[in-house]
């Protein structure tokens, strides 16, 4: 409960931000929110589901490409609804995850370090594939992806401007965040914890460990797919970098620095790392990446729970007393 209160405060602060930070930074922050959504999906599957996925961006990229293909009218020229695109992006990413998850986890499944290496290899394969899939733009990707078009009761509104786009995306992110939090606080969350820590015992109680792993893998993929779909409407293009290995590992860094076992910390980890990057990379230039790599290392060694999760947990515990 306390946790949600802090989350509410943080979302309220985000909602109040645009007038304070101005147009340019509002645009930047919108992008960071979408990265935050990717971080939420990774925290869900890794921190809660116990599945270390080194290729989370593949779901992001799949969602992005599906969104681009649909809203550009490349599938059905007459149906270019943003809603359809978003739903298809989520469903497509989730279905891909379901198939991949079944392949990886069924029977004597793969876990731990092996899983990390295999997901890394799959992300590399997908990136190469997209680079050479000329029907989908190949290396250059798909350009001129239209912005999100909101339609209610016949009226329609295209999200071209920064501020309305920011609020639309903030609402989506908030809904996903609080929805996922509620899900994790339910009996499902308990099963997920049990599945992560004692899969054998859970299996002996009659639960299907495979089904739980598949559900969290697909759910997380759907969220990542949604993030990817939102992202391409912001930038106006979908490229192989969305699906690849670099974004996957960046997401890992955000989530590890923030705190993988806490959705809020992972979300803030993405936003703060990106913000720091845009400020500090100007100051430090090429040294920034060096600093980031070292900070990541130190945070893994000294604060395995995360740089942000540690103080955030203190804060919530302090209020409980």
């Amino acid at each position, binding site marked *: 409960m306390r946790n949600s209160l802090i989350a509410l405060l943080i979302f309220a602060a985000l909602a109040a931000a645009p007038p304070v930070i101005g147009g340019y930074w509002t645009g930047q922050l919108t992008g960071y929110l979408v990265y935050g959504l990717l971080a939420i999906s990774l925290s869900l599957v890794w921190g809660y589901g116990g599945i270390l996925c080194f290729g989370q961006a593949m779901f992001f990229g799949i969602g992005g490409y599906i969104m681009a293909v649909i809203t550009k009218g490349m599938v059905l020229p007459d149906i270019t609804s943003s809603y359809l695109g978003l739903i298809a992006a989520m469903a497509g990413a989730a279905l891909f995850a379901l198939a991949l998850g079944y392949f990886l986890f069924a029977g004597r499944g793969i876990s*731990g370090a*092996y899983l990390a290496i295999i997901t890394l290899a*799959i992300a590399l394969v997908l990136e190469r594939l997209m680079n050479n899939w000329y029907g989908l733009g190949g290396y250059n990707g798909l350009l001129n992806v239209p912005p999100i078009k909101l339609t209610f009761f016949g009226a329609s509104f295209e999200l071209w401007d920064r501020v309305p786009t920011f609020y639309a995306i903030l609402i989506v992110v908030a809904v996903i965040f609080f929805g996922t939090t509620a899900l994790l606080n339910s009996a499902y969350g308990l099963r997920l914890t049990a599945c992560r820590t004692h899969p054998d015992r859970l299996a002996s109680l009659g639960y299907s460990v495979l089904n739980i792993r598949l559900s969290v893998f697909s759910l997380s993929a759907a969220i990542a797919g949604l993030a990817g779909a939102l992202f391409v409407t912001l930038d106006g293009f979908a490229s192989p970098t969305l699906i690849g290995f670099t974004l996957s590992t960046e997401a890992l860094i955000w989530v590890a620095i923030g705190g993988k076992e806490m959705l809020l910390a992972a979300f803030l980890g993405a936003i703060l790392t990106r913000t720091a990057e845009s400020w500090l990379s100007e100051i430090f230039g090429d040294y920034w*990446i060096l600093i980031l790599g070292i900070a990541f*290392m130190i945070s893994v*060694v000294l604060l395995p729970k995360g740089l942000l999760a540690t103080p955030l947990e203190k804060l919530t515990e302090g209020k409980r007393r």
Partner: protein
Amino acid sequence: MSELLPVFLDVTSYVLILVLVALGLMIVFGMMGVINMAHGELFMIGAFVMVAAQGAGLPFLAGLVLAPLVVGFLGLLIETALIRHIYHRPLDTILATWGLSIALKQLIVLSFGPESQSVTLPLDGTLTLGAFSYPLYRLVLMAVSAVLIGGTFWLFIRTDFGLMARAVIARPTTAATLGIDTRRMYRWSFVIGTALAGLAGALVAPIISVDPQMGLGYLVPGFLSILVGGAGALAGVLVGGAVVGGVGNLLAVWISPVAALITVYILAILIIRLKPEGILGGRRAK
């Protein structure tokens, strides 16, 4: 025949280098359970030591001696400052060494620039036998790699160090109760693994593009080789390296390199999924 022979030799030289890189990874993974994601960067730094040595006017052989020394010393630092503190948290070693790989890559970008460097061939002759001709350096490279691989196997199978190392791999606590300093074994195995990567990097520097991003291209195939061959026995690396390196390069003769790479990755993933203990079998199936 004379057309296929150079292809076969190219494939063999690639496989040998891949095995050399994978051996270092395997020693560290098999012994400490540590996944060293920075191994590719250590390979890359080996190549850059060669670049720097040639830049300083040193002969090729000096670079070949310096590279394993410099990279091995770096390995010693990494073990002391980083790995030692987290080797009981295997998944965290993946992340921490990933951070390290980012930092090392950027360190090289800052000192040498992001562009690719060239290393001059120490031997630019070709061996010609009738209709067949082949660059001499590549033949030397193959011979040296084969000797190094053989030497590593000898070290782990025939020597006292190897006996202790295999004991620590099989039963670390029992080895300690017999008076063996397991921490010291971990440290020196890590150093040997990294020095091998550095030496491999220096050896191939003249025939590949040397740039700060080159590590990943060897890291992932290296890991796949270990998992495909089986992490239990050292010989698994030979089989895995031959499958991952050999199949990919042979396929590239008939289909595009990208299609070949995708095919071989998928093949490797399938083998790992269907036979998690690897082709030769191994103990650490997880």
